[in-house]
């Protein structure tokens, strides 16, 4: 399966040039770009690991691409997402977020059902990869 989180998951995987163009758009808006990685892509896993701090004050997308290459060297077997943060009043949150790296194989999620009272079913989404400890899930 292909996890479709992020703004561009239905497009073919982006090239570095395409990523750079999106980054440049974000920087021109004054947003801070940051990279995060994880091997737990559960849809409710909000806090992926930060690859350093958000790159405040950056002007050139090339800086982000250098960091992305570095991040891929260490965590190329995991999901990496690029987010752009807008600190302006009234938003103060993420403006754009998309996946820039995926594991070679995405096993997806198991849906567990617990039958409750009446016909009520309680659902739990479990990543197939979650049985292994962090860092060994996509080896």
């Amino acid at each position: 399966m292909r996890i479709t989180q992020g703004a561009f998951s239905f497009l073919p995987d982006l090239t570095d040039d395409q990523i750079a163009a999106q980054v440049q758009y974000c920087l021109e808006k004054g947003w801070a770009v940051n990279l995060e990685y994880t091997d737990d892509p559960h849809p409710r896993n909000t806090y992926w690991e930060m690859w350093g701090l958000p790159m405040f004050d950056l002007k050139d997308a090339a800086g982000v691409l250098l960091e992305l290459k570095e991040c891929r060297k260490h965590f190329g077997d995991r999901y990496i997402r690029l987010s752009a943060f807008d600190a302006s009043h009234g938003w103060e949150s993420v403006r754009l977020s998309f996946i820039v790296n995926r594991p070679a194989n995405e096993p997806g999620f198991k849906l567990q059902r617990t039958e409750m009272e009446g016909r009520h079913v309680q659902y739990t989404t479990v990543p197939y990869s979650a049985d292994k400890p962090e860092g060994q899930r996509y080896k």
Partner: protein
Amino acid sequence: MNEAAKIPQDTHQKSQTVRGKARYQSGVMEYRKMGYWEPDYVPKDTDIIAMFRISPQDGVDAVEAAAAVAGESSTATWTVVWTDRLTATEKYRAKAYRVDPVPGAPGQFFAYIAYDLDLFEAGSIANLTASIIGNVFGFKPLKALRLEDMRFPVAYIKTFQGPSTGIVVERERLDKFGRPLLGATVKPKLGLSGRNYGRVVYEALKGGLDFTKDDENINSQSFMHWRERFLYCMEAVNRAQAVTGEIKGTYLNITAGTMEEMYARAEFAKQLGSTIVMIDLVIGYTAIQSMSHWCRKNDMILHLHRAGHGTYTRQKTHGISFRVISKWMRLAGVDHIHAGTVVGKLEGDPNMTKGFYDILRLDHNPINLQHGIFFDQPWASLNAVMPVASGGIHAGQMHQLLDLLGEDCVLQFGGGTIGHPAGIQAGATANRVALESMVFARNSGRNIVEEGPQILADAAKFCLPLRQALDTWKDVTFDYASTDSPDFVPSVAVSN
């Protein structure tokens, strides 16, 4: 030219307010003499201001008509009453302070009326509307009356909770940033069993939509009782979440005959883990505010379908402009509201629609007559409402939709998803690919208005469902003149 236009109207009349003992002589007195026309009045920052379009009956003075609207929407009755003298009556009188002829519309006038803040109960749309639209719309001296716009003071806005979730927090909860959300209304809207209904939800969400939606009249009928729908829909939502790894939702319509029943349906939706519930505008302002409070308490997004609004928003001379409904609903606290598509099958002038979207989304609305916004309106950080574009739109219009409506909205393709020749999942995928391609192209610096069709054609090369969608609906447009159009159009300055 009609009859009314032949009568010369003086809209610059001086105050004619009768003062002292003479003001309270028993009998009937013109409204403008009772103190409801005060052309020198300067509205206070704390006043609520309403702007009406009035069409006086033939022979009725426009200023007197404006004063009558001010009187009947505040303290006046048809005759002088001595009990006024037991009150600080000058404060409580609404004051018509400005009357302008409507450009290009003989016999119609814009009347500005100021109301003191003390006339209104805090945090109650029902109280506000009982005053402003409660009594005046059937008033005989007027042929027609339309509430065009309102200005609310910050002090009044701060008495409302506002949207229970708001655009930013909704995006955070759903983990979806940087693109419009995608939805579809389940069709046919009547007759599907719960089991069949859930199938449509599952296929659409799996294919790439973020939300599916109950239609306004799906409540609890013999073909599908509400619990059946909720149970099957949540099976579909959870299955789709597991196969995509993305948060999904379906607007479960909890509209019912009583508040008690609506709370029961909302509680069940919460137990089942739904992220969102839905109500119809016809449940009434108080019920809407109650559900908004319930949603804030229960971490739920609140979707409002504007069922019934067309009965009073569409005609230009009578009723209430949708921009006023938008303001009321932002105060009342809904998170989503259907606000027009411009390009789809339902009424919507592009300029008027932009005005509605600005009212719902911005923290400050400057005056913009071309967009129908007559007042400067600060929102004092009240949460923003996500506008929903729905009704006769399809993937081939994606560049126009993104350009006109921006990215903080929900684009709902009902027929445009479910009517896809290769099935519902393919329809959903076509829409999602079209959307992502267009946002991607825009961010990359391309001119999507001009290059839109090419961008879609390029995306269709790697996405067969999009190719099929473009081929199926390529010639579908709804190009009719709007009835609710702007009164002010930019004019070209002519220099000598």
